[in-house]
């Protein structure tokens, strides 16, 4: 057995509160820069759903010292790649660069954290509002089953919980967003003390702290971050079965199930991650065996959302083969999930081995390494989870899976969402 690779890193904190992780690996002349801001759709106030994501778009529109369109142009012309993304708990920004251009990444990221507002205009906001509305059409409104996450979040979280609404938000709320909202959101959440910066790959480790301080050090800290809106506490179980049927322009019925599970970071979440792999990952999985090999379905998915506020959810879905009745499919899906109560050692081992191997594959990429380090630092103040999390996954036993399934995969803790073709 070969030695398992360990990701090594240093950590330090600037005077303004910016947490920094430096993971040196000079194997290739490549470096990844990654910033997590502790703000996502969960922080949005009523009437402003979708705003955290719209704001993410505004971060690419230039800042005081970076002209409009220059952010993308400067990185592309040195052969770098870049993007940002918004989710329930966080917003991240990242670029991967040929390593001799590391400073370019630090300069661009620090300028929009320190000097965004002087470059903000109504015209830029209106343009990106149109872009984001087209993103919503593309992802949700013009896509079969495209609103599934909106439906599931509404079903699984009460109206006053921060996860009740989706990341993309509503068209009406996007229309309502103003420049004043941009300014207030920036001043509240885009502060060094609400961010983690990770640099991974090829750089001079001795010089990095001074380099980061040069670009980020003079940005003043912001005020304390306000608490999340609404009610964040949830009962561990849903207490009922919640059902929805949606008729849409889809060709084939699809069934989703969602179960309330402990939040990411809870020690029980590792069993959820293994259970999701047992259910839906690979052609040896339970759902593939029971639904696809039997000719009932043409796809299966199972995913445990790694989210931290109150409770997470484990979601599965499957799409019917032509001619298969939606209720037959639903029964088969629920029965297959129920089989976890009598899970076998072999099925648990298969899932754990797949998780181990996919970690090795994923961490080859510096952007993935940097994003994982930022995440564990932001969520748990424990970057070393990048190395230790897999040990906790390996420690999950068949007995753990059985009792997890017994507790969480019951009728009183699930949402069931059916999509049916609209009658013509």
């Amino acid at each position, binding site marked *: 057995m070969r030695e398992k690779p360990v990701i090594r890193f240093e950590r330090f904190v600037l005077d303004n509160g910016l947490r920094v992780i430096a993971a040196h690996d000079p194997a290739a002349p490549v470096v990844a820069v990654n910033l997590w801001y502790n703000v996502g759709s969960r922080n949005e106030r009523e009437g402003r759903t979708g705003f955290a994501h719209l704001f993410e778009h505004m971060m690419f529109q230039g800042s005081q010292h970076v002209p409009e369109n220059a952010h993308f142009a*400067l990185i592309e012309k040195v052969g770098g790649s870049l993007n940002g993304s918004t989710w329930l708990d966080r917003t991240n920004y990242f670029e991967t660069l040929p390593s001799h251009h590391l400073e370019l990444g630090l300069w661009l990221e620090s300028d929009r954290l320190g000097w965004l507002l002087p470059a903000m205009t109504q015209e830029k906001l209106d343009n990106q509002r*149109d872009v984001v509305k087209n*993103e919503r059409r593309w992802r949700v409104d013009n896509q079969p089953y495209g609103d599934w996450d909106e439906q599931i979040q509404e079903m699984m979280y009460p109206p006053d919980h921060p996860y009740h609404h989706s990341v993309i938000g509503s068209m009406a709320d996007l229309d309502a967003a103003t420049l004043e909202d941009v300014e207030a959101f920036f001043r509240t959440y885009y502060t060094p003390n609400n961010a983690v910066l990770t640099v991974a790959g090829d750089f001079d480790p001795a010089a990095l702290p001074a380099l980061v301080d040069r670009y980020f*050090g003079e940005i003043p800290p912001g005020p304390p971050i306000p608490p999340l809106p609404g009610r964040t506490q949830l009962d561990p179980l849903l207490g009922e079965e919640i059902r929805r049927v949606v008729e849409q322009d889809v060709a084939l019925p699809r069934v989703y199930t969602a179960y309330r599970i402990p939040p990411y970071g809870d020690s029980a979440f590792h069993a959820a991650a293994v259970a999701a792999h047992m259910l839906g990952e690979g052609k040896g999985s339970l759902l593939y065996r029971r639904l696809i090999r039997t000719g009932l379905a043409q796809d299966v998915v199972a995913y445990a959302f790694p989210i931290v506020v109150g409770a997470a959810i484990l979601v599965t879905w499957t799409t019917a083969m032509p001619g298969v009745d939606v209720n037959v499919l639903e029964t088969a899906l629920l029965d297959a999930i129920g089989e976890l109560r009598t899970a076998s050692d072999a099925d648990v081992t298969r899932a754990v081995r797949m998780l181990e191997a996919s970690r090795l594959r994923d961490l080859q990429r510096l952007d993935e390494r940097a994003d994982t380090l930022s995440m564990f630092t932001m969520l748990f103040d424990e970057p070393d989870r990048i190395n230790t999390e897999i040990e906790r996954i390996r420690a999950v036993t068949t007995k753990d899976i059985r009792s997890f399934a017994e507790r969480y995969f019951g009728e009183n803790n699930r949402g069931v969402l059916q999509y049916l073709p609209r009658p013509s």
Partner: protein
Amino acid sequence: MSTFDRAVAPAPAPIREFRFPRINRRTLDNGMTVLHAAHGSAPIVTILFIADAGAVREGNTRAGLAELTANLLETGTADRDAQQIAVELETLGAQLETTVGWDAASLSLTVPTEHAPTALAVLADIVLRPAFITSEFERLRQEQVGQIIRRRQDPRLLASDVAGRFFYTPASPYARPLIGTEQTVRSLGQHDVEAFYHERYGPRTAALLLVGDVDDALLDAVNVAFGAWTAAAKPGHDVETGPAADRRIVHIVDRPGSVQSELRIGHVGLARHSPDYFPVTVMNAILGGLFTSRLNLNLREKHGFTYGARSAFAFRRYPGPFLIQAAVANDVTARAVEETLREVHALRDHGATEDEVTAARDFITGIQPLELQTTEQLAARLAEIVTFGLPDDYFDHFRRGINDVTPDDVRRVARQHIHPDRLAVVVVGCATDVEKPLRDLDIGPVEIHRIND
């Protein structure tokens, strides 16, 4: 704290040289090619089997056969059934991926080094000794029909599937979807699959690629696994790739209720072997290959018509399409088409600036090491060498090929390979909303199609 001028972008540090990994070649006694390359420090190996069994080889009446054949391989051998194969590989930490393209079919997996020889043996069993079990054949054929039905309902996939029919003559395989049509797939029999397998899968028309933590034990295992394979696959024939029309036509594929139009605008493009591969690659980056390309800056950042616009030349063994794509709101569909044509004309008539050409070249050469971070990424480059018969040192010279491209080259290839008056303008969207404005543009005849036409 040092003071410095924030208004000036920082200068780069001294560049660290990047070399493309060394590629090693050997040929087994039965004629099968083996390429291998070391990569990174992760204790894993990517194993990729690739055969000249892509969709261009299947014949137009049997569209979808290449896909069905490749997918059937892992559903049973003399010694293992489908479930055993999946569980055995996945318990090793390997997940088998079957990919069928126009030019090739491949089966690949990435596995921890210690299990690589075992995974290789299972892969060889799948490729060399498929059992072609009738119940599995019928299940997979039905699954493929189900996918075709779903693709019709999804505007993005529908647009990509139908575009070829408006770009290429009906005699061309590129005129129809790679996955086949409901009619052709339903008509496939198990004998078609078995015949295609015997015609197309053999050691002389296949290769095995190994990337990552490759050791001698694994290389020895290759000989054991594939050395005795004696199947005699047939050589392939060239295929038709002529255009569908010799003038510009607007094709509206009506999808009532659509809130966006999926645009696919293009025509027949170039083969991978085109001597203009490098200048066309640079030219396309400027037109629509980058975020800061002309099309995306215009349609997205200036007008807000779309979430994103891009263009590409699909360099295949035979001339693949030149294709511009974007999803745009209904009420701006005609204006988006107009702006797209404006950009195409501008590049063709005036070429690109020195700065644009430099930026595009530097992007394409600079991003090379970023796109070789994983064993899978390097294996894909090796597959390109095998599929297109490129020399083993091709990527060592790739940067020079790009760096030699001048603004004059870009102007020349734009004029030579982009034909605005022959573009097929395919719009998958709500005809009620978009037909009149598209007619008013007066850029060519407008034809309306129904989805099932």
